[in-house]
């Protein structure tokens, strides 16, 4: 187990007063709070900061910690000195703490149960916590009901009474037409309850995986399709991919780059209606122009009166 220097974590000095510690905590809490932070390890950082504040903001815990601190250095392996036992009444509050914290202040789970709960039947029973995880889904998988296997970390009470994570797998039916950010609830698949408490629920938050070809706009999809200049000029029938296979699309003569064609019903399945697919044309020129093609372009150039920059002239 690693020693944690709570003063260092909060960026305060051991002689600093409560007010300085509170200010430091508030600043770091805003910086690392998982709901607002963009830092990649925000959640882990926030837990550390919250743990440090939990200890340093309480006179008893801080005194106890200060005593222990002489035996350890930040980041180094740490074992409490022989015979160490945390003082009675140091208390315990709800949270998810490091082994280091629990070795000092105890992880006696009877204390966990004292985080009073609105509808607990007795004070030693409480409902397990809900768990929320992201569920990445490919666009193709939203077209029909799909069964997916998910794996997640589920806390449970180990033999010592400590909360430990086990890896749990579940089969989940992802209903047709799920949308980005939609939630699916799996009742009773969250953390176990304590005592007679029922287990919490598992919430899956759907995240549509970005597709290499299609963009999602509500229920609609859009795809950018390259066309040759002559296809755009003369009109053409071209093959376009959809989520459910290729289809033929007719391009009108005199089509422009950026023109949008709507293919009804080829978008995502929505709750109320089926979305559409928008085909956006993008005129492209061959990478290399051979002599024969160059000659044809030259003929066209000499005969055409088209001025693409007429709007730019003063």
């Amino acid at each position, binding site marked *: 187990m690693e020693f944690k220097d709570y003063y260092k974590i909060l960026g305060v000095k051991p002689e600093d007063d409560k007010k300085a510690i509170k200010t430091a905590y508030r600043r770091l809490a805003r910086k690392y*709070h998982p709901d607002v932070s963009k830092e990649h390890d925000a959640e882990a950082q926030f837990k550390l900061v919250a743990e440090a504040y939990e200890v340093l903001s309480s006179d008893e815990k801080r005194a106890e910690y200060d005593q222990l601190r002489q035996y350890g250095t930040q980041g180094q392996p740490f074992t409490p000195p022989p015979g160490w036992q945390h003082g009675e009444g140091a208390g315990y509050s709800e949270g998810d703490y490091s082994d280091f914290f629990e070795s000092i202040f105890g992880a006696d789970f009877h204390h966990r149960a004292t985080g009073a709960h609105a509808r607990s039947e007795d004070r030693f029973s409480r409902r397990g916590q*809900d768990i929320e995880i992201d569920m990445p889904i490919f666009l193709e998988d939203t077209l029909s009901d799909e069964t997916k296997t998910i794996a997640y970390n589920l806390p449970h009470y180990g033999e010592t009474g400590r909360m430990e994570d086990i890896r749990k797998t579940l089969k989940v039916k992802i209903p047709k037409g799920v949308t980005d950010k939609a939630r699916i609830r799996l009742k009773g698949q969250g953390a176990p309850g304590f005592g007679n408490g029922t287990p919490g629920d598992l919430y899956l938050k759907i995240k549509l995986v970005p597709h290499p070809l299609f963009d999602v706009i509500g229920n609609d999809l859009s795809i950018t399709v390259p066309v040759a200049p002559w296809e755009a000029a003369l009109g053409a029938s071209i093959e376009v991919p959809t989520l459910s296979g290729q289809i033929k699309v007719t391009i009108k003569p005199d089509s422009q780059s950026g023109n949008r064609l709507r293919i009804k019903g080829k978008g995502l399945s929505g709750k109320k209606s089926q979305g559409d697919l928008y085909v956006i044309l993008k005129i492209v020129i061959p990478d290399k122009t051979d002599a024969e093609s160059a000659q044809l372009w030259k003929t066209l150039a000499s005969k055409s009166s088209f001025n693409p920059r007429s709007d730019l002239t003063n």
Partner: protein
Amino acid sequence: MNDHTVELDLNDVCDAVELPRNTFIKMVEYGIVEPRGETPTEWSFDLTMVSIARRAVRLRRDLKLNWAAVALVVELIEEREQLQAENELLNQRLQRFLQE
């Protein structure tokens, strides 16, 4: 076993976010979560609301905010998420259109 169109009533949602009823009603009064239905006994909350409520509880506890500030933060986070998603989409569409 799974239900994605499910809605929770006031008691269930209080259980899910571990808040007493009165405190949860405050959250509704501040407009942090919006129930369907008129009176508390008729209220129902979809699963997105449950997630928002849970986020609000975390923000209040961890950042020591009052409900008015929580309401503002929750609203701003949602707005930011929306703008980010929109920005990503526009960026992606632009990239598809531009030549490399």
